[in-house]
């Protein structure tokens, strides 16, 4: 019985695709990435402790205040970076291909518990990969802002991005 249901699903379901491929990007193209994310003190404690980022202003509110942060514990900047990056992945890099590097990452205003981050990106360059014909290299400028529109981070990221044809061949 359940086997019949599964073969029915296999036969009837249409794929609901996510992510873009190399052919989908052109210079100057803008993306407003999905969702936004409100960061909590728990997010920060978990991230800071798991990555062993032992700057106590991200773990001890008394030290955060002594350092001038009257709104509490500032989020560890690597959490801000990876969250803004994470929200950009479906639009930019989920199509397959490894993350190569980041240039010119600059932090803006600090992020405190309860702040909501949003992410946008612009395509800076699109080029072929000499080493891997099934992929291209795309570079984006990504920007993270808080609920007041203030910039919390900006950076340029490059990935190998698979071409649509190579993805179809692998199916």
């Amino acid at each position, binding site marked *: 019985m359940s086997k019949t249901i599964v073969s029915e699903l296999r036969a009837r379901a249409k794929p609901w695709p996510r992510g873009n491929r190399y052919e989908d990007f052109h210079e100057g193209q803008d993306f407003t990435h999905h969702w936004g994310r409100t960061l909590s003190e728990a997010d920060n404690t978990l991230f800071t402790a798991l990555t*062993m980022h*032992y700057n106590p*202003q991200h773990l001890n509110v008394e030290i955060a205040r002594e350092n001038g942060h009257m709104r509490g514990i500032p989020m560890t900047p690597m959490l801000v970076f990876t969250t803004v990056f*994470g929200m950009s992945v479906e639009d930019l890099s*989920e199509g397959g291909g490894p993350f190569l590097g980041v*240039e010119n990452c*600059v932090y803006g205003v600090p992020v405190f518990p309860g702040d909501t981050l949003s992410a946008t990106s612009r395509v800076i360059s699109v080029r072929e990969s000499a080493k891997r014909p099934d992929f291209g290299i795309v570079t984006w400028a990504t920007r993270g802002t808080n609920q007041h529109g203030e910039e919390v981070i900006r950076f340029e990221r490059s990935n190998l991005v698979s071409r649509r044809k190579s993805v179809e061949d*692998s199916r």
Partner: protein
Amino acid sequence: MAKGSISAALTSPNNYFEDFVPGDVWQHARGKTVTEMDNVLLTNLVLNTAEGHFNEHLMQTAGKGIFARRVVFGGINLSIVIGLAAQDTGEQVLREVAMDKVRLNHPVYHGDTLYAFSEVLETADSDRADAGLVRFMHFGINQDDALCVQAERLVQMKRRSHWAVKVS
């Protein structure tokens, strides 16, 4: 800061702005074996939707992918390497200013162990008298000495002259 500081009583005495000399290279005390828990938990926590970090079945069957198993999200490798360097190069940091020249040179898989090294590139005065700027190059290598992560990082760091007076 004229009065004693709480942080001076709770942190190392030898990692203030004045302690960093351009050209010095440091090997940090601990490594970390990156587990499935670290990768999947943090990848999902930050909403990174790339399945290559959390769908083992896809990675083993997708055929034409570059990797044949789940690979750790590069943002986590970078965060762990900077984390491993943070007690020495971040305990006295007031503000992370910038990162540059970040390279993810080699993939990291569940069970690989990362170790961190840091080179002091330059030091400079900053816009506040009680802190200076330090630029580091951080390196993350795995258990086989493969270079996995490289990143330049600029921080604003407390000066001992202003911050190292302990609360009595």
